[in-house]
Each structure stands twice: as structure tokens, then as C-alpha cells.
């Protein structure tokens, strides 16, 4: 029973980890850029969701759509003004730029939103579904379902729409894509916007149980890298598998080890997977 409870919890939280990490892998897949500032967009999404709740009275689950839209637009601008300029630069310069971006976003948020921890109050924040001895947290379930929906939407977009296919084409072969009449610059802009927008969306859907403050990104950054590397850098399907893996490892390892060592277990799995399968658990298939 305890194991089932831990599994269910792991799957629910894993869905959220997946959706916040998909953007990171998408950006890498399309542009070959590892965006160290990705988690800062999660923070921005949380703030947008929070403000939508505080000013407009919108539930964060609805606010998440606004968070997506706002951060999507911001991502397009960031891609156009900053990231685009280092696409051909050495990887070290790319890392440097995104770390600079991380510092800027974090502190801009500190200036703009203040240092306060902010949290929304929802009617379901302390609700849980009860199935026998099994508790299913409603905020977790809601976040999970929203993640599934957004994951599906992304999948449909990437596989069924012209722009999604064009984006994958750009990722796989930029030159050939432009021979198809695809504006690679534009696709990268959309991909970056989409990537950070999805992360922001994920940030907003966890608001019912998670607090936002300007440095909240730091809590997620290593986790996000773990998720995408476990699944395979650049693979959207991998991020989903990776998210689930991380959620379940965290949840199950807490049963055998002190919770304090949760991340240690995670990192050991992470390093082992990297050493044995650098392409990730589902590497290869994009």
C-alpha cells in the first residue's frame, strides 16, 4: 500500500517535472543551446500566475495560460535579441550568456516583484481524493492533468501542425529546412518562446502548492537538467520519461533512505545513466 502511494505520488509529481523540463529539451533540440536560465522562466511563469490570481482573481490553473502567453512572447524577444547572436559562437559562450541571463532575470524579478515569498490560496489547496487508503492530492492531480494536457498539445503541435513539423525539421537539418521555405530564425524564435513558455506554464500550475519568490528557479535548475539528461537531451518524449523517472525515484527512495539523501540517490542514477547511456533512456527517438 505504502509503495503504491509512493508510486502514485511519484507519477503525479513526475508529470509536473516533465512539463517544466520539456522546454529545456526543446530549446536544446532545436538550437543546440543548453539554457541555464530556463528555470528563471519557471519563476516568471509563477509570478505571472500569481499576479493573475492576485489582481484578476484567476485560479492559477487558468492563469497558467496567461503565463504561457506572456513568457512565450518574452522568450521570442530574448531569442531574437540575445540567444540568436551566440548560435554560432562556441558552446562556452552560450553557457556564459545564459548564465548572465539567469542573473539578470532573477534580479530583475527581485527589483520588480520584491523579495517576498508569495503564495496563492485556492479552495482546493488542502483537498485530496481518497481511494481506500490512497490519498491523491488535488493540487498535485490538477497540476499533473494540466501537464498531461499541455504535453498532448505540444505533441499535437509538433507532429500535426505545419509549424511544429517545420520546427522539428529545423532541429534536424537547418539547411534543408530553409530549402523547404522554412524561416529557421523564426522557428528558433518560436521554439525558444514555446520552450520557456511551457516551463512558465508548468510554473503556474504548481502555484496551488508551491511558493514563488525571485530565487525559486534555483530549486529547480539541477532537477530540470537531471530530467532532460535522463530522458535524452533534445528529446521531448525523453523529458516525459525523465520526469516520471525523477518523480518516482524521489518518491520511492524516500522509503528506503532519509529524505535528505533524496537528491544523492537521484544524482547517482543520473551519473550512471549518463555513463552507460549518454543518449538518455529514450535517446535517439526525438
Amino acid at each position: 500500500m505504502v509503495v503504491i502511494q509512493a508510486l502514485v505520488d511519484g507519477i503525479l509529481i513526475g508529470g509536473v517535472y516533465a512539463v517544466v523540463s520539456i522546454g529545456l529539451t526543446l530549446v536544446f533540440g532545436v538550437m543546440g543551446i543548453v539554457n541555464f536560465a530556463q528555470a528563471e522562466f519557471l519563476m516568471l511563469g509563477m509570478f505571472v500566475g500569481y499576479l493573475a490570481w492576485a489582481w484578476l482573481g484567476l485560479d492559477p490553473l487558468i492563469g497558467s495560460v496567461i503565463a504561457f502567453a506572456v513568457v512565450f512572447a518574452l522568450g521570442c524577444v530574448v531569442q531574437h535579441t540575445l540567444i540568436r547572436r551566440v548560435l554560432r559562437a562556441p558552446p562556452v559562450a552560450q553557457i556564459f550568456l545564459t548564465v548572465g541571463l539567469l542573473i539578470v532575470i532573477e534580479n530583475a524579478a527581485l527589483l520588480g516583484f520584491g523579495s517576498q515569498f508569495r503564495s496563492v490560496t485556492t479552495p482546493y489547496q488542502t483537498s485530496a481524493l481518497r481511494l481506500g487508503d490512497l490519498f491523491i492530492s488535488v493540487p498535485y492531480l490538477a497540476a499533473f492533468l494540466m501537464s498531461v494536457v499541455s504535453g498532448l498539445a505540444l505533441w499535437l503541435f509538433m507532429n500535426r501542425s505545419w509549424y511544429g513539423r517545420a520546427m522539428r525539421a529545423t532541429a534536424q537539418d537547418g539547411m534543408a529546412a530553409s530549402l523547404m521555405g522554412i524561416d529557421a530564425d523564426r522557428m528558433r524564435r518560436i521554439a525558444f518562446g514555446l520552450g520557456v513558455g511551457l516551463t512558465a506554464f508548468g510554473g503556474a500550475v504548481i502555484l496551488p502548492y508551491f511558493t514563488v519568490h525571485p530565487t525559486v528557479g534555483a530549486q529547480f535548475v539541477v532537477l530540470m537538467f537531471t530530467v532532460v539528461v535522463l530522458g535524452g537531451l533534445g528529446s521531448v518524449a525523453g523529458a516525459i520519461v525523465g520526469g516520471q523517472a525523477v518523480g518516482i525515484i524521489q518518491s520511492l527512495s524516500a522509503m528506503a533512505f532519509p529524505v535528505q539523501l533524496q537528491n544523492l540517490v537521484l544524482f547517482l542514477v543520473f551519473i550512471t545513466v549518463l555513463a552507460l547511456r549518454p543518449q538518455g533512456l529514450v535517446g535517439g527517438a526525438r
Partner: protein
Amino acid sequence: MDKRSDHRGPRLLRPTRRAALQLGGAAVAMPFIARLAYAQKGPVNVGVVLPLSGANAQFGVNSLRGIELAAEQINKAGGIKALGGAPINLVVADSTSTPTTAATVGQRLITQNSVVAILGAYASSLSIALSEVTERRDIPLLTMSFSDQITSRGFKNIFQVVAKASTLGRAQLTETAEIAKDAGQTLQRVAIMYEDTAYGTSQAAGIRETAKQTGITIVMDEAYPLGITDVTPLINKLRGADAQAVFPASYLNDGLQIIRSMRQQRIGIPVIGGAGGYIIPDFKQGLGEFAEGVLSIAPGSHDLAPELTAEFRQRHGYFMTHEALEHAVCLSVLVQAIETSGKADPAAIRDTLHTTRFDQGWAKAMTGGAVKFDQTGLNTLSEPLMVQWQGDDLVTVGPSKYAKKKPIWTA
């Protein structure tokens, strides 16, 4: 939303500089302090090192607000009278939540700004790193960090205005046992969970130690990583632990997550937080009605001195948090030490701090109504308080001599 810019820096000084000149004229007439007045033509520089950015920024900003409030009051009241009305000039530096930076900016304040003392730096790790610099430069450091290490290293220039973490941890358990007893329950099985920071671990150690002495069984004892993204495993463990009360030590985010998850799983046992995130306004804001009845230990509380802390609430829209209050106390005590010793000299201030009982100004807001440091620099009068969320406010409910309201035991 941020009114800080209205009452800081230059504006803080402008009205009082005039006052200082007037008083300075009077001082010349008094030969025995004329030399001092001459030496103290300008304001007295007091260093403030706080985490204004990074993970602890919120507490750093609150602390600064407390210090600014106290400084303003002192300057409005005519500055430091023993120095001919010299005003306090705060030299603020951001320690960014990194100990190395805390030490470096401390060094800067000492050598570039000739500060007579430093206040800060909220987090224990920052204060300890900072103290390594102040100790070697013989500059007094007044802090409200509560790690035991602060005053256990034999340093001569450090002053801890609050009770240490192990004392807080002990009180957290004994006070709770008292409250339970009053409600007709014997506390036998408790759970502790804490973030693995200096603050969380030392507080947990205090609880653990006391439990052993008083024969209370700890049925769950879990540290968890700072910045935990999912507390469910903790709550699952708690559910299986059959505890009568739970003692979590954490900042706000984990605190909210813990309470929410407990409520989801219908775990109704009393929660006794370990200060940190449990006693700030955002806790109530985040949880709404679910904050009701949550207890916490606190090194200080705004309702012990409403006449002093009301202005803070008026200015910022929320009650004066304990870190703001204690930092105001730090400054107030420092100024009293300067008044007593009659000179703005670090060594003289240090000696005065060690030997004097301070019962004026903000010191009245502390337990015992005063501050008295022993030779290690610990404020011997400070006692931990038990506070509880009742209605919209955080009220002191223990020990009984300080209690403003009766505690509610929900078990």
C-alpha cells in the same frame, strides 16, 4: 508597493544634520565633551550587512526595514546625545546570501567607511563568515542569527541578541509539553522534520536533546534538502509515524507545502513550527484559514511591544517580523552603548556592550524588557516565545508571563 525609497539614505540624514549642527553649537559650550564633538563632526557610520539579493533576500529586506525604522527614530530624537547629537548613518551592503561576499563587504565597510560597528547578517552562515572579519579587526558585530556557533567560539566582538538555536529547540519542546498538559494531554510521541541548513539542524538538535532528557519519544526524525520540491514523502512518513505533534523547522515554501500536504491527508495533529517561515505574514497569506492554530517558537514577537512596533505595521502594512524587530534592537542597543561609553570607538563600544544592561529604546521589546550580554556575547535575558496564529494575527501564547492570549491545542 515598495516604500523603502521614501525613507532611506540621504533623506534620512537631511533633517537631522541640521539638528546635529544646532546641538554641535551647544556642545562647544561644554568643554568636557568638546573634543569628542570635534572628532564627531559628522555622523556615526554603522555598517549593515544583509542578504538583499539571493535566497534570503526577503528576510534581509525586512531586517533592513527594522534597522531603518530604528535609525530614523534615533535621528529624529536628536541623534546620539553623548556625541553632540551626531546622527546615525547606515552604510548598507548586500551580502548576497554568500558567506564569502558577507566577509568581503564587511571588510569594505570597516576600511572604506570606518564603521564603528556592524549589524547583520540574518543567516547564521553569513554572520559567522562576517564575524571572522570583524573579530580580527576588533569591530563589534551585533547579530540576531541564532546558531549556537555564533557565541561558542570565544570571540570578543560578537553579540547575539537572541537566544541560541539549541535554546529555541529546547523551549519548542518544553513549551509545547506545557501547552499540551494544560489541555489535559501528555506529550509522549513527537515527530521532527527540518531543512538541512544550519538553522534547521541546530534547532532539531535542541529538540532531540530535550526529548531525551524529558523521556519523550521521537517517532520521526527527518532532515530534508533545502529547496525541496515535493514534501509528499515526508508527509507519508509522518502519516505512518503516529506522532502527537509535529515540529517542522523550515522557511516559508516548505512550511506551506508541509501544512497543505498534512491537511490533504487529514493529519490534524498540532504543528509547532521552528520560527523561520512560520512566523511571517506571508504564512497566513498563503494558507488563509488553514494557518489557524499553527504554533511556532519565536525569538521575539511584535506584540510584546506594540507601542514600538505599530509604526512598522503602519508603514509597511504588515506586523513587524521578528528579524526586523531584533535588528532594530541591535541598532538601539548599539546606540545606547555609544551613549554610555561616550565615544564612537569600537573598543569602547565593545567593552560597554559586555558590561552594561540596556533597557532603553527597542531593548524594551525583548523578553525581560532589556538586553544584557555575557562574556561570550550572548544576551542572557532573551527567552524564546511560543506564538500562535489566531485569527489574522500572530500572538504570543507562552511562556505564560509573556502570553497575550491563551494557546489553543487542537488535538
